[in-house]
């Protein structure tokens, strides 16, 4: 069978661009390029109310994502939500007395954990716990309180 060189070249080009597209999808489009579970450490925080937080919700400092929520469980004794988050190990200098709050991105957006860095010289390590937390703000609760205040006030 005669096989032309151009045909070989075009097939090679096709396969190469196809594989390049797969890599592009993996590295540029997905989180594979920015996040890998190997080099990360886990910290825990307890919240009165974890609201709409989900596994994989972002964890950020000053708006920059540094990790993700890895599990959300209920502490049966205290009835608190125990949230574990994996933080990329390149961010290894978060002060021990940092605080964690659950915020919502935009009015209807996803909920995420924001970490406010503290002032301590000791840093959070693997299995550390963040003690200062503020829970998710639930919209209905807020509206309820607002109405109450209005009614009581004037």
């Amino acid at each position, binding site marked *: 069978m005669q*096989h032309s060189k151009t045909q070989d070249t075009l097939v090679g080009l096709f396969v190469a661009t196809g594989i390049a597209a797969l890599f592009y999808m993996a590295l540029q489009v997905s989180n594979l390029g920015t996040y890998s579970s190997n080099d990360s450490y886990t910290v825990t925080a307890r919240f009165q109310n974890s609201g709409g937080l989900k596994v994989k919700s972002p964890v950020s400092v000053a708006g920059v994502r540094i990790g993700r929520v890895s599990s959300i469980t209920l502490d049966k004794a205290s009835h608190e939500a125990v949230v574990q988050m994996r933080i990329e190990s390149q961010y290894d200098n978060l002060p021990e007395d940092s605080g964690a709050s659950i915020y919502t991105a935009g009015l209807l957006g996803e909920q995420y954990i924001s970490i406010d860095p503290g002032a301590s010289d000791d840093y959070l390590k693997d299995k550390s716990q963040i003690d200062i937390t503020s829970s998710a703000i639930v919209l209905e609760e807020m509206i309820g309180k607002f109405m109450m205040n209005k009614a009581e006030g004037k």
Partner: protein
Amino acid sequence: MLEFLESLGKITRHSFAKLGRATFFLLHALTGMREILPRPNLLIKQLYSIGVLSFLIITISGLFVGMVLGLQGFNILSDFGAEESLGVMVAASLVRELGPVVSALLFAGRAGSALTAEIGLMKATEQLSGMEMMAVDPINRIISPRFLAGFLSMPLLAALFSAIGVMGGHLVGVGMLGVDDGAFWAQMQANIDFREDIVNGIIKSVVFGFVVSWIALFEGYDAIPTSEGVSRATTRTVVNSAFSVLGLDFILTALMFGDI
């Protein structure tokens, strides 16, 4: 009433017979793949006519679909002040659904119909019989390389479609509508998961490539060897592929992303 039942029974019987033939055909074609490994030229030739010749339609369609997604997405998201999420929206739609599904439908129309017509005409002009008489198994020699080429080309074409689509969305969203470049990519990367989204999308396109190639080749091989028979078989390839791709997409989506 009786006649209705009778014709229903007949249709059922024919469908089962056809399914049986298609299954044997598939097994035969799969065992025939052994013979391709020592002869990569057979595969190269088919990768050319199946993959390379579908390249253009896939990339152009991908670009336009991505651009439309960028435009529509921007209109909806800007109402909620969430334009930064445009990247996620474009990429998620492409990676999870539009990439695998639309490229499989285009593939069925471009490569699938050509395969059916080619095999059907080979049958009608006795080329397949002729091969059998030359002691060459036509399924191993003709069908298996085409099957493998279709199966390999589909994920590559789907990835191309999605990648070009994301670029198209970027072109419209960032280039023309002024969405912030950093936010576009950062939001996308933060929300598109490699395992959940990209790998599942690839699995979908592998399944679609398998099914569309199977349908196209079997319809050609099973065609009535006349001009009319081949033309009907070609139509059946496109229709049956579309049904199978859309139906399987629902099932796969439910298994992968849904809580059903």
